[in-house]
């Protein structure tokens, strides 16, 4: 077919996304160079790099970057590892498989704010939460999740949300695994564990890449859970970059600094994406 037609077909998507990227981005770049606080909308002189400097020198900045990465990597790790194991498990036939699947994927459909509220108030509360109740029932000291392990608590909530997504993708992928290969391995003397290790995991390489890619996009943007449960605290222990920007933009109404932060986040996201695409990109488009 003619090149021109293929271009024409792609045009709407490309143009829209280009606009979606360029217009806000250029406005953001503009805002990041002026003094722009919602409380003083009339003062908007050019300030150069000041907003960036202010954002980077914020004592919360480095912890936020670190937390962003820890959150990202931990959730990726948890969802991929448990996702692979659970999907391998529910891929085999057993009684009530359909219902188990439905139950397993349900958390993915729950709104992030609701997720955080449920976990914070009903699960993790050290006095009247379910976890505390379980601990005390066993005679243990309840863990004060949000105070003592704030980032881990956030990681748990986010993982709970995204694990089902990983399971969904992996279950789909497992359906295409060649049964004859597994049988061949069986004849070769492989146990179930061997098959999982030597056949299933390599088979899942590409779906894992997909899950990592998509989750990364969303995990870099996590903030609702933080806002609802810990407000980024205690200290900066659960502040991530997105929450820090949120803090600037919507708690302090400092649009200039928030824009600068936003741009820095784009840079960070692209650095992550660069490594990610290097690592898994080959798998994505082949």
């Amino acid at each position, binding site marked *: *077919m003619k090149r021109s037609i*293929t271009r024409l*077909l*792609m045009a709407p*998507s*490309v143009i829209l*996304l280009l606009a979606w990227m360029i*217009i806000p981005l250029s*406005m*953001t770049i503009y805002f990041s160079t002026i003094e722009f606080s919602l409380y003083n909308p009339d003062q908007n002189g050019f300030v150069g790099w000041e907003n960036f400097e202010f954002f980077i020198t914020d004592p919360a900045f480095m912890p936020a970057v670190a937390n962003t990465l820890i959150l990202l990597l931990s959730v990726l790790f948890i969802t991929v590892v448990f996702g692979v194991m*659970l999907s391998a*498990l*529910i891929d*085999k036939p*057993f*009684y*009530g*498989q359909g219902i*188990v699947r*439905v*139950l*397993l*994927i*349900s958390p993915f*459909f*729950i*709104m992030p*704010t*609701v*997720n955080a*509220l*449920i976990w914070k108030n*009903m*699960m993790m509360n050290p*006095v*009247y939460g*379910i976890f505390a*109740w379980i601990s005390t029932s066993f005679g243990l000291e309840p863990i004060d999740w949000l105070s003592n392990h704030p980032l881990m608590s956030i990681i748990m909530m986010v993982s*709970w949300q995204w694990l089902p997504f990983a399971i969904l993708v992996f*279950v*789909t*992928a497992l359906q*295409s695994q060649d049964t004859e290969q597994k049988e061949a391995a069986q004849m070769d003397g492989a146990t179930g564990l061997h098959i999982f290790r030597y056949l299933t995991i390599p088979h899942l390489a*590409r779906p894992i890449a997909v899950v990592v890619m998509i989750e990364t*996009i969303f995990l*870099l*943007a996590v*903030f*609702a859970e933080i806002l609802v449960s810990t407000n980024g605290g205690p200290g900066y222990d659960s502040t991530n970059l997105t929450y820090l920007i*949120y803090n600037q933009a*919507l708690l302090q109404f400092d*649009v200039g600094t*928030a*824009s600068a932060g*936003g741009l820095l*986040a784009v840079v960070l*996201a692209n650095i992550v994406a660069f490594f990610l*695409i290097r690592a898994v990109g080959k798998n*994505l*488009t082949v």
Partner: protein
Amino acid sequence: MTLNQQRKFKTFLTGLFAWSVALVLFFPIFWMFITSFKTELQAISVPPALFFEPTLENYVEVQERSDYVKHALNSVITSFGSTILALIIAIPAAYSMAFFPGKRTKDILLWMLSTKMLPAVGVLMPIYLLSRDYGLLDTRAALVIIFTLMNLPIIVWMLFSYFKDLPKEILEAARMDGATPWDEIVKVVLPLSLGAISSTALLSIVLCWNEAFWSLNLTPSDAAPLTAMIASYSSPEGLFWAKLSAASTLACAPIVIFGWFCQKQLVQGLTFGAVK
């Protein structure tokens, strides 16, 4: 134990384990559901009240306070509307990328995905100002546009991956039969990829349905979807867990049930080109 018995026992163990994990993971949702039938006092009682007289009081309260139907309708319209719009825009692009790849196709695809890296919080103000200037604040249109653009890259990508796995010969056969590109898309590609399209759509709908940031900032009132409704039940002064549970149950139920019904589709279509 005979071979058969061994296998049965293994199956039993698998089932047992899978069931336990599923129940544990589902528990928070179950608990939210249960809590929605408690009084506020029961909701915070220690140890947790397992046996209690269920009350519908919370649902009545939600019904009185919020126009659930309006919010639900907004959610449905914005998530379905933007998904349909995004599909309409994405399908031709994915088709052209999958069946007529050029040297740049891969780069374009990765670039598209990278537009998703823009943190929403960072560009809130530009979008807010644009919406204000074009009179889009508190309109469904604003959400539809934003959701569409937000999900477009993933939709293009998912469809692209799937289309690439379609047997090329079928399209060639259609071409030999005299089909134009339009015929090819509408009469061959679309019917063949219904599974993928519906799972893509489902994913997009779920993401839109649960999107809270833009809906809270741009459409808090008339066009407010269910996520905004939740915001009127979370953390007021006073006990709120039971009422919040009821509101959350109402807000999540449609999409969860929808997801359950489409689970098969979702599992079939989420291949991301992984099935060869």
